[in-house]
């Protein structure tokens, strides 16, 4: 088994095919989308491939330490040009092929006009623990 992170972006990913902001969808389209997302997670729970899923607020700041003893420096809210993560799902699957297949399904969630959004999701393998046998 291998863990993968599926990252969804508010900004910073290439534009989706069906790229309409959510508040411009109809309420029915919104419901269909949310149902698809929760069905997807439930299905992965049933197959034993679901690990975690979280959504993030778009509000946030960059923080770094300042000179010793001083309070940390903040930069934000994020500028319009910055990459912005919307949320993630972690899956635990048998192969890279399976991870790609699932990311593809998630990207096809219905959006405006009931058509698949075809949004870009970022798929990142987790680095694993050191295996016992390495030679």
């Amino acid at each position: 088994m291998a863990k993968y992170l599926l990252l969804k972006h508010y900004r910073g990913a290439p534009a989706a095919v069906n790229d309409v902001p959510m508040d411009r969808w109809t309420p029915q389209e919104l419901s269909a989308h949310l149902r698809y997302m929760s069905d997807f997670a439930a299905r992965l729970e049933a197959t034993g491939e679901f690990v975690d899923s979280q959504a993030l607020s778009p509000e946030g700041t960059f923080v770094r330490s300042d000179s010793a003893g001083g309070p940390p420096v903040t930069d934000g809210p994020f500028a319009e040009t910055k990459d912005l993560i919307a949320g993630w799902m972690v899956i635990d699957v048998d192969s890279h092929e399976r991870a790609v297949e699932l990311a593809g399904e998630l990207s096809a969630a219905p959006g405006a006009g009931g058509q698949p959004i075809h949004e870009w999701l970022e798929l990142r393998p987790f680095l694993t623990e050191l295996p016992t046998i390495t030679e």
Partner: protein
Amino acid sequence: MVDEALLRSLTPTVIAVLVRRGADFAAAEDAVQDALIEAVRTWPRDRPHDPQGWLITVAWRKFLDAARAEASRRRREESAHAETVPGPAVAVDDTLQLYFLCAHPSLSPASAVALTLRAVGGLTTRQIAQAYLVPEATMAQRISRAKRTVAGVRLNRPGDLATVLRVLYLVFNEGYSGEVDLAAEAIRLARQVAALSRHEEAAGLLALMLLHHARRPARTRPDGSLVPLAEQDRGRWDTRLIAEGVDVLQAALARDRLGEFQAQAAVAALHADARTAAETDWVQIVEWYDELLRLTGSPVARLNRAVAVGEADGPRAGLAALAALDPALPRYAAAEAYLHERDGDPVTAARRYADAARAASNLAERDHLTRQAARLNAQLRD
């Protein structure tokens, strides 16, 4: 089947008995947890006639075993210092004192919540961890640190009831996740605190919880989406809980010592009293928010008051009241969107609903606010 509710309701009493016999709080709490686990294991086969007596006996034995093991471990280590003498016995003389200890002002809110749920709620660390979506090891550390923090506290004067009530309020507001219904658990504990303390604000908090819990069946659709108060099917409100909440509140108010929880419960009671949303007595609700503001000066109460003014005196009055507040307040944009829609300005309302969705702090509200924006935008396109 083990009656878990019964088992848990006995927890604080049994801890108090062990402490009275000379155990320190942390060791007593550990021993009672061990006894609870044994009860869950053995009672289905062999249920004792006197559950409380059984728990006291078994917990005391667990405490003695642990104390002996600890003493011999210390002898083996041949420590040069005698600093590990057990801490001073906490003068806990009843269950209420345990609540004070678990919500001691020296604890952070998160620690007080965890310790309360374990020591007086009788939940396991695993259940608490699951409810708060943190790893079990993290929650175990939080609880043992909290126990160390209060280890030296002597309960020789009355504790601070306000901190106990705040902890229970936090537990109630966390709602539901995992196998434990935290809202129901908070009500159970609030009932006990109200009975033990006979304080009108404890009653006020209990009433507030009962009245909000009564609406829970109508508050979400089967798909999990939020139903706003005005659109809820009031036939699905729990009339038994409402009746109890109103009774508890009236008895508290009759003592004429108003506090913030009583004022909040009064608002909830006025909503419960209206058979339809249109029949809501908004004028009285505004008056209760005025009382709440006088008591707390809370910005959140000010925001809720502005929305109530919008219902009582029209959306323009509501928007005027809102204009005096800090736009950075939680739910400010949502309140403004709502009032603009009622004022016949769907363009501004849709824009502010979209802003509100971006500022939302939870998924259910975010989806609800996005849906409101989508609904108005769809109307504007037609």
